[in-house]
């Protein structure tokens, strides 16, 4: 099979070649998959990406270090500040910048708020793909509250440009902790509803259980990470394996499921939302209400020549960045390891053999975000 396009096989008349996307509403953006269909079954699948390519990595080579942070935001636009963290951590490591404890905790709180926001968007759109409209409206309602909390402090809702070297740009709004605690109460009530509407729904069971099974070996071989990997039974989480920021201070578990099917991926994301709520509850208590939000950082960021890889566990998996410095105020190279990009690699594996309508459910369980995949 050619990697670029699907050629019809000579003499085979029972296979139909169908182009899904890039404008298909269920491809979560601009994914295009060329499918070979034999009746309802998918026989071949070739994904095409790049419709949202914006040349991030090259632009970042031409920007100074503080300017790059604003660009990293634009990758995974659903999970805001999570994108900034690997770059900020890598540069802090290179320069040896100390981050105050309170700043670390604030960063972690924003990180987990955005994980909730991102999983809510996933839940809404995944259910939309399965044909349910009201969960979409409810999840965006709850996400609206998270974005409101973020906007009050950071000044923007989706692309806040909030983290900076040595901490965060400005102190949190005086209401931040109270707002977050209120939101968590609200969210806990809502999770009961979501369990009813999503996890316990017989329609969801019928559409997802046993569909798109990803074995443990295959998941590791393809380099997937995040909820997709954990749903295949591998308990790998960067937050535990290579702790960063305030994660060593809080208690949480890594939910895993041995099944590896679409339902397992739904279930793992649900459990992660409970863990996020748990982490946030602890951090609301632990974070000092006043104190420094930013450590001492040089006015001109010029890391010594060298390179550094740092990864974080964002909503989709391991989001890493390799920063190569040549000693000037602009990075020599910035390479992003996209979590959604790596997770998309299993699309041909999972699609082949599945029914066409199941491919939509499988794709939504991978939760791709094309800002980050195409970069």
């Amino acid at each position, binding site marked *: 099979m050619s990697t670029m396009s699907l050629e019809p096989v000579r003499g085979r008349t029972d296979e139909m070649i169908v182009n899904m996307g890039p404008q298909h509403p269920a491809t979560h953006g601009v994914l295009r998959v060329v499918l070979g269909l034999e009746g309802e079954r998918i026989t071949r699948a070739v994904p095409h990406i790049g419709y949202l390519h914006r040349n991030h990595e090259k632009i970042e080579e031409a920007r100074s270090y*503080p300017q790059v942070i604003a660009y990293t935001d634009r990758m995974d636009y659903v999970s805001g500040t999570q994108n900034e963290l690997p770059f900020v951590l890598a540069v802090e490591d290179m320069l040896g910048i100390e981050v105050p404890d309170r700043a670390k905790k604030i960063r972690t709180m924003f990180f987990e708020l955005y994980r909730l926001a991102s999983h809510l968007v996933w839940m809404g759109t995944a259910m939309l793909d399965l044909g349910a409209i009201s969960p979409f409206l409810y999840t965006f*309602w709850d996400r609206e509250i998270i974005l409101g909390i973020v906007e009050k402090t950071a000044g923007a809702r989706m692309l806040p440009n909030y983290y900076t070297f040595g901490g965060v740009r400005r102190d949190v709004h005086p209401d931040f902790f109270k707002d977050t605690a209120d939101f968590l109460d609200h969210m806990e009530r809502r999770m009961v509803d979501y369990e009813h509407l999503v996890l316990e*729904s017989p329609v969801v069971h019928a559409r997802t259980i046993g569909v798109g099974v990803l074995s443990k070996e295959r998941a590791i071989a393809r380099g997937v990470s995040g909820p997709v990997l954990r749903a295949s039974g591998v308990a790998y989480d960067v937050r535990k394996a290579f702790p960063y920021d305030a994660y060593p201070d809080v208690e949480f578990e890594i939910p895993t499921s041995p099944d590896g099917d679409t339902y397992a991926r739904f279930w793992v994301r649900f459990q992660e939302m409970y863990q996020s709520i748990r982490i946030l509850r602890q951090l609301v208590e632990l974070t000092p209400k*006043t104190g420094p939000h930013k450590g001492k950082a*040089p006015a001109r960021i010029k890391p010594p020549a060298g390179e550094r890889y740092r990864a974080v566990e964002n909503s989709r998996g391991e989001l890493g960045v390799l920063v190569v410095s040549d000693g000037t105020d602009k990075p020599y190279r910035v390479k992003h390891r996209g979590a959604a990009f790596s997770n998309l690699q299993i699309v041909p594996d999972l699609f082949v053999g599945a029914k066409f309508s199941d491919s939509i459910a499988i794709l939504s369980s991978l939760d791709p975000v094309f800002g980050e995949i195409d970069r």
Partner: protein
Amino acid sequence: MSLLQEVWQAVKAIGTGMATVHKRVYEDAPTEFYPYVKPDLPPVSVQSLALVENEDGSERCIVCLQCERACPAQVITIERHRNPEGKGFLIDRFDIDLVNCMYCAACVEACPVSSIVTIQDFEMSTYDLQTLKADIDFLHEQARRARQWYSPKFGVELRTEDGRIEKAPPEMQPGGLAELLKPAEEVDS
């Protein structure tokens, strides 16, 4: 699963769904009916940029080019010449391409005199993108129309009815006033 069980499952699922929907009908939505109700944005919200003048109409900007250097999207263009009488510089040109600006507020962060500020005027829709290539008059006009604006150095400032500029009371200030009273600790490398 027998047919009876399946029917029961379906009925139960529809019942649960309906009950959840019913619960939500009576809750207040967090959204506004936008054109009729204007959203109450927090004062730090970055919606547009403006260039503030002093109360007497003189320029606050000292044309230090810090904002131009800080801008990641490189959409600020400033030209200046030396002031023939007295110190400092005078502005020849101060353009911000608000079409390509990504509202990251890095310029506001960099300005030493809080001349360039963020405002909450988000209604910038236009038929002609060229009108958003803001020149200095446009940016001044934005500031004159704004009732409040924010910059990290001075915090939230208000324009009173008679055109004076006042610092907003502490309860309106974001992120703790302590941050504003104490300039950011920075060491030179």
